């Protein structure tokens, strides 16, 4: 509570404005679990086509002078087509000039925030096939190239601590049935909390490393990444994605355009906000072309509620 400024006693009151601390505290949150489980690969701007070759049958034992049969094989192709993603915002000239005076580097903060948003958006797109901004299916651009749809094994999440453990086991059994090994798991907050609450017959936590928000890099030898905001994005039913990310998932940034400071026009097509120059505004924009492909859907399993 500030004291009144009177003739008898001079009080600070609101005479001295608070000092602006140099630098912006960046509040943009997000990360990519998929990028952590699978290294980036170079993706051509025009897309890439990876051919897959498989021999479904086993070797044949042939008796002396016996007839031989065909083993057979399959050739397929996975196309990775980069899609354009962007983030932008309007800033007034006054804010830019004023922020320079108090050493607030808004451009740097935007650039850092854009990288975070791109990482988070990549997970949302590759897991759920939606446009991260609208939450709507991006069928025209992403198509069926996302884990919720493509995973070869889909496990129903049962909803308790002990069953969460069984769900993970079932998902891995499904992957193993195709002769694949799981290299990692991306888990959402629900299944993470369920596993953290799981206790043995002596009421000791089965995964003490998960207690108090712990995010271990592996559980029972399986590499784990925890990313609740993307796995359960927009109330998605998905609880975890498990599979061989190291060998059968590929992603990369085909082109990242340098951050733009646009001074003219109406770059966000906002009829109400109108022309930038007409309102003494500039538009900050980050843009990138990012592509990914699930090379073999049978190497992945999802755990999701019904």
């Amino acid at each position, binding site marked *: 509570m500030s004291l009144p400024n009177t003739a008898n006693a001079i009080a600070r009151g609101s005479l001295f404005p608070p000092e602006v601390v140099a630098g912006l505290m960046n509040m943009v949150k997000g990360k990519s679990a998929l990028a952590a489980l699978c290294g980036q690969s170079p993706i051509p701007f025009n897309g890439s086509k990876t051919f897959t070759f498989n021999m*479904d049958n086993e070797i044949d034992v042939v008796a002396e002078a016996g007839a031989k049969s065909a083993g057979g094989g399959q050739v397929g192709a996975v196309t990775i087509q980069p899609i354009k993603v962007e983030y932008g915002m309007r800033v007034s000239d006054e804010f830019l000039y004023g922020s320079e005076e108090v050493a607030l580097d808004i451009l740097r903060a935007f650039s850092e925030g854009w990288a975070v948003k791109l990482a988070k958006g990549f997970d949302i797109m590759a897991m759920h096939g939606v446009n991260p901004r609208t939450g709507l299916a991006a069928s025209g651009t992403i198509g069926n190239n996302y884990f919720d749809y493509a*995973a*070869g*094994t*889909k*496990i*129903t*999440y*049962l909803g308790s601590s002990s*069953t969460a453990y*069984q*769900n993970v*086991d*079932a998902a891995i*059994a*499904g992957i*193993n*049935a*195709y*002769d694949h090994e799981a290299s990692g798991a991306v888990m959402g907050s629900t299944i993470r909390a369920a596993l953290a609450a799981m206790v043995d017959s002596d009421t000791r936590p089965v995964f003490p490393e998960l207690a108090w928000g712990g995010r271990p890099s592996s559980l029972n030898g399986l590499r784990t990444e925890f990313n609740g905001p993307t796995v359960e994005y927009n109330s998605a039913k998905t609880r975890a994605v498990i599979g061989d990310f190291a060998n059968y998932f590929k992603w990369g940034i085909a082109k990242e355009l340098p951050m733009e400071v646009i001074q003219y026009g109406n770059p966000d097509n906002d009829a109400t906000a109108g022309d930038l120059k007409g309102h003494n505004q500039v538009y900050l924009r980050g843009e990138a072309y990012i592509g990914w492909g699930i090379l073999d859907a*049978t190497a992945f399993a999802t755990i999701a509620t*019904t």
Partner: protein
Amino acid sequence: MKYLNKRTGVVIDVPCRLEGPDWEEVTEAKEAPKAEKAPAKAAQKKAVKKGADA
């Protein structure tokens, strides 16, 4: 619940529902039709014999 992978022929027994283009739930009838019928017939015959004795 048992599920058969139609592509690889692997059967897995899991406590939760499983779906996928290659997966098919294995019902008891599909799993072992002969093994179930044989003991049932033997039991029926024995029951008939017991009834005849009485």
